[in-house]
């Protein structure tokens, strides 16, 4: 009797640990069969799956997955909330999620696992190394380990090239990155891709003393006197560059005086995927056009 109750307790504990231990590594299935019906509920995961050549295996994506174009034609399974029924109806054998979704959708994840679907939660990435790790994890999950390594290697090689060229930079330029203008001027501080990109190309992020995503007052930015301004919301606001150039208070900022205000596609500088390289290259060309042609 006593033994039986201890056993039950152990069982309960085991189940609990299973439920709560949604970390990427232990969710990768032991089976070596590569999945045939993949659902990706996060934009960067979707991009990685395509880059690994497994795009044809995707059967559904999130509302926010907008790249590559092929992904936009797949069934949309939700954004902030996810459509569990529709997901299960698609009979996936692998569901890719992001760390930020692990908590908010923990009930759904339990349900998915009950039906025997392999669920892989990819860690949040704030650096290139994190991104390489994510690619590796997804590579393992979709059965494209080798392809993943070659994608990572080519990304690393390109980063290396850029780092080499950055040695030609004599005087580092100060760069202000503007992500959003509503509710203060939002920018990217330390521990963001953009900060790492800027330091790789040999530039100084004027907001590097702040951590993560922060909003600064306009007067602070004017005081920082950046030499180059990078805007990431050009896809949304067609007049973005013009608006910055005509800001009255900014007329004495070198970047505005010399009209060095440029657009960079947001998705290439925030999504931890293969397109980060496009982002770095675009940033490099904007900040040091004479070095990175």
């Amino acid at each position, binding site marked *: 009797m006593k033994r039986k109750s201890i056993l039950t307790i152990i069982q309960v504990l085991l189940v609990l640990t299973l439920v709560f231990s949604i970390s990427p590594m232990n969710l990768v299935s032991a089976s070596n069969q590569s999945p045939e019906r993949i659902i990706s509920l996060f934009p960067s995961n979707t991009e990685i799956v395509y880059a690994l050549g497994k795009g044809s295996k995707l059967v559904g994506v999130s509302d926010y997955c907008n790249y590559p174009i092929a992904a936009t034609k797949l069934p949309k399974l939700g954004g902030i909330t996810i459509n569990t029924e529709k997901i299960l109806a698609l009979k996936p054998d692998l569901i890719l999620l992001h760390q930020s979704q692990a908590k908010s959708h923990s009930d759904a994840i339990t349900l998915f696992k009950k039906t025997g679907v392999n669920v892989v939660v990819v860690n949040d990435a704030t650096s290139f190394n994190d991104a390489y790790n994510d690619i590796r994890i997804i590579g393992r999950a979709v059965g494209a380990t080798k392809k993943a390594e070659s994608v990572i290697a080519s990304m690393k090689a390109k980063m290396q090239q850029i780092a080499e060229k950055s040695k030609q930079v004599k005087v580092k330029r100060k760069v202000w990155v503007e992500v959003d203008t509503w*509710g203060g001027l939002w920018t990217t501080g330390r521990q963001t891709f953009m900060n790492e990109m800027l330091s790789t190309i040999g530039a100084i992020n004027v907001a590097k003393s702040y951590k993560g995503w922060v909003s600064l007052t306009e007067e602070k930015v004017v005081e920082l006197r950046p030499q180059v301004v990078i805007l990431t919301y050009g896809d949304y606001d067609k007049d973005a560059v013009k608006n910055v150039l005509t800001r009255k*208070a900014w007329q004495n900022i070198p970047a505005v005086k010399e009209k060095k205000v440029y657009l960079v596609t947001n998705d290439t500088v925030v999504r931890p995927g293969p397109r980060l390289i496009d982002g770095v290259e675009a940033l490099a060309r904007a900040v040091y056009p004479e070095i990175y042609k």
Partner: protein
Amino acid sequence: MGLKHLREPSIQKFTSKKTFKISIIYLIAIGSVIFAGLFGLFVSSVSIPIQTIVSIITHKMFNIASLSDFTLTEQLIIWEIRLPRVIIGLLVGASLSLAGATLQGLLRNPLAEPYTIGISAGSSLGAVIVIYFKLSLFGLGIMTTLPFVSIIGALVALISVLLITRLSYTRLANETIILAGIILSSFINAIITLLISLSSKEEMSMILYWMMGNLGMKTWVHVWLMLPFFVVGSLILLLKTKELNALSLGENAASHIGVNVKKEKILLLLAATLLTGSAVSISGAIGFVGLVIPHLVRIVIGANHKNLLPLSMLIGGAFLAFADSIARTVIEPRELPIGVITALIGAPVFSWLLVRHRTGKRGLK
């Protein structure tokens, strides 16, 4: 903010004493506007010596003092960022508070405020539509198109409320106006929520930030945009304090003393809409000021709109400008949403005043 006067039991019997008290309160209110204005100019995320600030402003305004001593950056920060922001803070606070005081008296309801009768919801919907559909009228860009559409939204909301009220009941009864306002607000809020849920992540964050209210990125253009509405709206209200007093006693009483109830009501509502619509269109939906400042002033000065309206304006303006200074300095150079500050400072102060007032009264009896 006239706190001291509250402690003194108001047992002045002589009118001369009363006028004295009132003029002191006016002085304090004007003083707090000046204090809030200067505080907003002097204290901010970039520190610039007070002397420099004063010289720059006197030069720009009266062309005195020489500017060669100061860097262009300092001049731009003071003249193009800080001063317009402080002025917008004063105008928005004054508008919301004045509109709130009017609506509370007019509708004879202590919970009435610019947000209850749907004006602010209409204004918000206008703004959200601009953000969602990326409207840019006459090549003005999203940022400048927004206030225009937003004010139109406020007016459309008022007309709808009056129409609903009118159709249901010919008399424009207060309760019906409030009910219609609440119905309209929830309808509009549903549309806003619908647009938010249909929008992309970027648009969503813009809309949410806009709705939280913010005085950042304001320029002289916004000041000039808002000023005509402010002047017209507040002039109408300040000239109509007698009618408002009569209406706040009840409609029968008002019509007995010869007030054209329906006409005055519509005029007062329209003026309150101009004020609220222009304020919300510039700064987003900032809560608390329109509801609570009029009550606070009423506790101190009484319900006579002759004093209540101008004092609400002054105190509301000072309060919002001060709250904005806090919002941009407390974790400088980062910014907090101003609505957070108005409620965080406002609610405890108001509760304290309320308690003091009530216990004071009981003590007297």
